[in-house]
């Protein structure tokens, strides 16, 4: 385990060496942003709307007491969406979508000698391949989480509009009621940390692939599984520290 941790840290150090040519790396960052960000937008839209709607319906179902104002449903949906559902569930889904793509892309480049070709040319292969993916993950995953929060809360509104459990006016009032800005900070910290975890762990798994197509698949699977475990672990640590 310590051997792997050491290799992982050394790879990260290599990844952030001074680039050979900034413009080439910048173009790569932009390409990765499109791939990771725009490419994942569809799945994020779908899961966010549904999670927001389901969270609202289930909260309303549990708060049947006449002593509790209906606006509480909006508040609980807001807090659970911003604190947990959007950053964590979205990141777990993105670990599958983005992480497996990163691990299999780099793994395929490894087994087909494309990484060797980069090294022969004198290119810092970890820097060229991994740093744009990490930078892109650190920027696009938080942006996707922001989109997810907005759509999750919209999903809750649509659920209210479609049922008679809670009125949309109560829901909207609940969203703005007793809002604590610290939850936004927690959401931002989580999404940045998860972005780093997904991209760096999956890139590490891909970079040290050896063998053929079978091993590339195994590396992608390992990348996703380890990312998911580390996301849940980081979720616990960040929640404990910031709340």
């Amino acid at each position, binding site marked *: 385990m310590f051997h792997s941790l050491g290799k992982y840290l050394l790879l990260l150090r290599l990844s952030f060496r001074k680039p050979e040519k900034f413009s080439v790396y910048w173009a790569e960052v932009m390409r990765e942003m499109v791939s990771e960000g725009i490419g994942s937008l569809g799945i994020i839209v779908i899961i966010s709307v549904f999670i927001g709607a389901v969270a609202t319906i289930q909260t309303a179902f549990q708060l049947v007491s006449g002593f509790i104002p209906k606006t509480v449903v909006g508040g609980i949906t807001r807090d659970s969406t911003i604190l947990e559902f959007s950053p964590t569930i979205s990141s777990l889904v993105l670990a599958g979508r983005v992480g497996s793509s990163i691990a299999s892309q780099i793994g395929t480049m490894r087994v*087909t000698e*494309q990484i*060797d*070709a980069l090294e*022969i040319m004198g290119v810092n292969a970890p820097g060229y391949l991994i740093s744009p993916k990490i930078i892109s993950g650190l920027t696009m995953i938080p942006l996707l989480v922001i989109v997810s929060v907005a759509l999750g809360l919209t999903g809750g509104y649509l659920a209210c509009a479609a049922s008679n459990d809670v009125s949309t006016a109560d829901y909207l009032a609940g969203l703005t009621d007793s809002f604590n800005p610290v939850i936004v900070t927690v959401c931002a910290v989580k999404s940045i940390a998860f972005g780093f975890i997904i991209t760096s762990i999956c890139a590490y798994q891909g970079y040290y692939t050896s063998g053929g197509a079978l091993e590339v698949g195994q590396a992608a699977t390992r990348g996703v599984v380890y990312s998911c475990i580390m996301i849940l672990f980081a979720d616990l640590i960040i929640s404990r520290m910031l709340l």
Partner: protein
Amino acid sequence: MIEIKNIHKNFGENHVLQGISAEFKPGMNNLVIGGSGSGKTTLLKCIVGLHEPDEGEVLYNGENFTTMHFRERVPIRKQIGMLFQNSALFDSMTVEQNIMFPLNLFTDMPKDEKLDRANFCLKKVNLEGKNKLLPSELSGGMKKRVGIARAISMQPKYLFVDEPNSGLDPLTAILIDNLINEITEEYNTTTVIVTHDMNSVMGIGDHVLFLDNGKKWWEGSKNEIAHTNNKELNEFVFASKFMRAARAKL
């Protein structure tokens, strides 16, 4: 010129290279031959720095490459072109982008000049007009030729070629051999070719190194092969009836 001195390489208990020494001169096709698992590709990877030898030295024009740090190696690496066994073209890039990749990273040429260079390299390998194709749209022989075009785009002093003819039909294999030979002569490159194709050996083998079980067993030119008494080399080169018959006629 490239000199290798007493190269040893182990993978665990497996002693893959056992003290190989040789000199590879410019303007010559230096062929490293041997059976599967003889250590040819490992030797090539030690020379270009993809593997670090456990013992021994690799000298590029007298400069010790093995003891150099990553950054110190970059100027030498910029003078190296390499054609991989499976071409190793970047899948996500077109033919043109593959060839221009090292130019984009290591030169300040204007875009037009880079395009001109890419077109020149493509013309050299008879692939004019294939600029916008992706590697997945190319045949095996075309991929090799694009690999050569990429390798020569930086006008290298050293050209390394790993199994250039594997998986190719005889005609394409000869075409690739001729192309490598032409580049070696025209640019006076120090060319090191790893192969087990006897047609290549007899066609372009200016200097041949025979490896078996990680040891160097024989060194000479293509003309000397037919007359050698080296048992291991004879068993390898004249394994087929056809080659034995050809030798008898010499």
